[in-house]
């Protein structure tokens, strides 16, 4: 399960992923992004998804997908098995993001990760002035009914990469309908990063 990605988010994946590469999508949902990449970029696609009903939709789109937990789905893969591992709005939903990201960087050349920014100004206002758990278009869930397990900001992620010697090769920030160029941690609803580790 994931929130509806904006077309802008899809665009980032289309821009960054080279044609005819191999892509593993962790938490691929109903396979919308993966099948777009297959169509537009002729990638070799593999998905992992925990939701059974989503698996049926993926198969209907002609995708290969594993009905599995992301947290346990990577250990079998040899190093650098894929050109890309992508985590589209699923990173904040895994139990152990640290292990998943380390594993993702091991099994692929590059990882593309996009997640909702918890420090968006609307979220800050709701928390700061209303004293309520924020609900924004990228974080649309009530506190008691959310698939999200971790709440991170764009700055949190940048700092995290610095601490772990992870190289941020590209980044892109999206607001509601457009990309955000200034103060992304304040104005971006989602952040997307292309990262790698030497």
């Amino acid at each position, binding site marked *: 399960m994931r929130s509806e990605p904006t077309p802008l988010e899809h665009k980032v994946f289309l821009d960054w992923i*080279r*044609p*005819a*590469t191999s892509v593993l999508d962790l938490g691929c949902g109903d396979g919308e992004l993966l099948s777009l990449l297959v169509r537009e970029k*002729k990638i*070799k696609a*593999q998905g992992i998804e925990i939701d*059974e*009903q989503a*698996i*049926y*939709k*993926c*198969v*209907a789109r*002609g*995708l*290969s*997908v*594993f*009905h*599995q937990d992301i947290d346990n789905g990577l250990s*079998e*893969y*040899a190093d650098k*098995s894929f050109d890309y591992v992508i985590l589209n709005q699923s990173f904040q939903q895994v139990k152990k993001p640290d292990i998943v990201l380390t594993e993702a960087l091991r099994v692929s050349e590059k990882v593309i990760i996009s997640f909702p920014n918890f420090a968006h100004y609307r979220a800050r206002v709701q928390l700061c002035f209303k004293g309520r758990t924020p609900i924004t278009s990228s974080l649309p869930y009530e506190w008691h009914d959310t698939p999200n397990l971790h709440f991170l900001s764009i700055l949190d992620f940048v700092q995290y990469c610095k601490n772990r010697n992870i190289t941020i090769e590209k980044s892109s920030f999206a607001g509601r309908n457009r990309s955000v160029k200034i103060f992304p941690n304040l104005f971006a609803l989602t952040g997307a990063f292309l990262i790698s580790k030497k």
Partner: protein
Amino acid sequence: MIAAHPSPKQIGKVTQDPERPFGNPERLPKSETRNSVGHVETRSYQFALPPNELTLEGGEKLGPITVAYETYGELNSDRSNAVLILHALTGDAHAAGFHKGEDKPGWWDDMIGPNKAFDTRKYFVVCSNILGGCMGTTGPSSVNPKTGKRYGLDFPIITISDMVQVQNYLLDHLGIDRLLSVAGGSMGGMQALDWLASYPDRLKSAIIIATAAKHSAQQIALNEVGRQAIMADPYWKEGNYYAGHLPAKGLAVARMVGHITYMSETSMGEKFGRRLKDNGKEHKFSIDFEVQDYLHSRGNNFVKRFDANSYLYITKAIDSFDVSRGKPLQHAFKGIKAKALVLAFKSDWLYPASQSLDIVRACKLSGIETTYCEIDSTYGHDAFLLEIEEESHLVKHFLQNLSSEPDSAGESEVMAYEI
């Protein structure tokens, strides 16, 4: 292992979840699932005539061999639409349609036919009885041409690979060079795994359902109870029973153990609970509960159609099966270009999902493009014969995707561009 043919009453869910996409009649109209291939006949093919007997995995020679098989649909002009269906322990070549004068359809009729998962308007579907069986293909109850008597225990030990080898010869006979897919559940899934490992170039994909790459101690133990029941029957007589009484009690008990393992605690509870059976008592330990009555009737029906020696030979083949022959499983799958669809069922404790995940792990390690789904079901191992809607959806789209894409030579060309 296969359960007896589910009656039409059993088919379909006990409870229908309205949130499931399959509740939607647009997706799989009920009328479509009733479509049938119509009247069919079992045919047979004989090969391995002396002196060209078949060499079995164990080194012994066997011949001549008769294979009983059925086909549904038409082979297309480039012979690229053939699907081989692989049956489980007690199945037969009669997978779909009706034999003349019979009102019971083939064992996987819900999956094979026009508009069904294995759509006979698109695919040429073949199903044959396994080597060692008793439904038309050579097995221990066949007559040994050297002695003029039935083989009994003179029949050589056979393996899953031997069954697959025989199917391979049948395909030669039918003029099929390359299969679009092989598909089977339980022991049929083991044959599908063996196909993948033994003849990877002869198939484009494998559909592997509710099975294991090798049996666990628990699975071997359960089969052993069945075999011991047969061999403890005084009428078994070291397998020499064909002229007289059959070891019916023993075989019935073996079948009862089987049926227990095919159901889940939930499905047994739903079907029988603790309901009592009103059966004018013969003695203190006559049947009290419906579940006992069910097991007895399944056991007694089974002996009418199945050979006890075949049960021994086939369960032994299942227990000794190890597709990678002691090596890590991924070694058996190295370099395979075929795609795989692996299915497991949540309440199946006989072939638990963990065993399907072992297969999936090996597929990942060897780079086989794989789809895996653990279907939510309460039917236990029987689910592979009963969860038709989910299975159909997955199989149908998996096959559709295969037949729409170019052959592997073409695929590599696509992958080569740009890099």
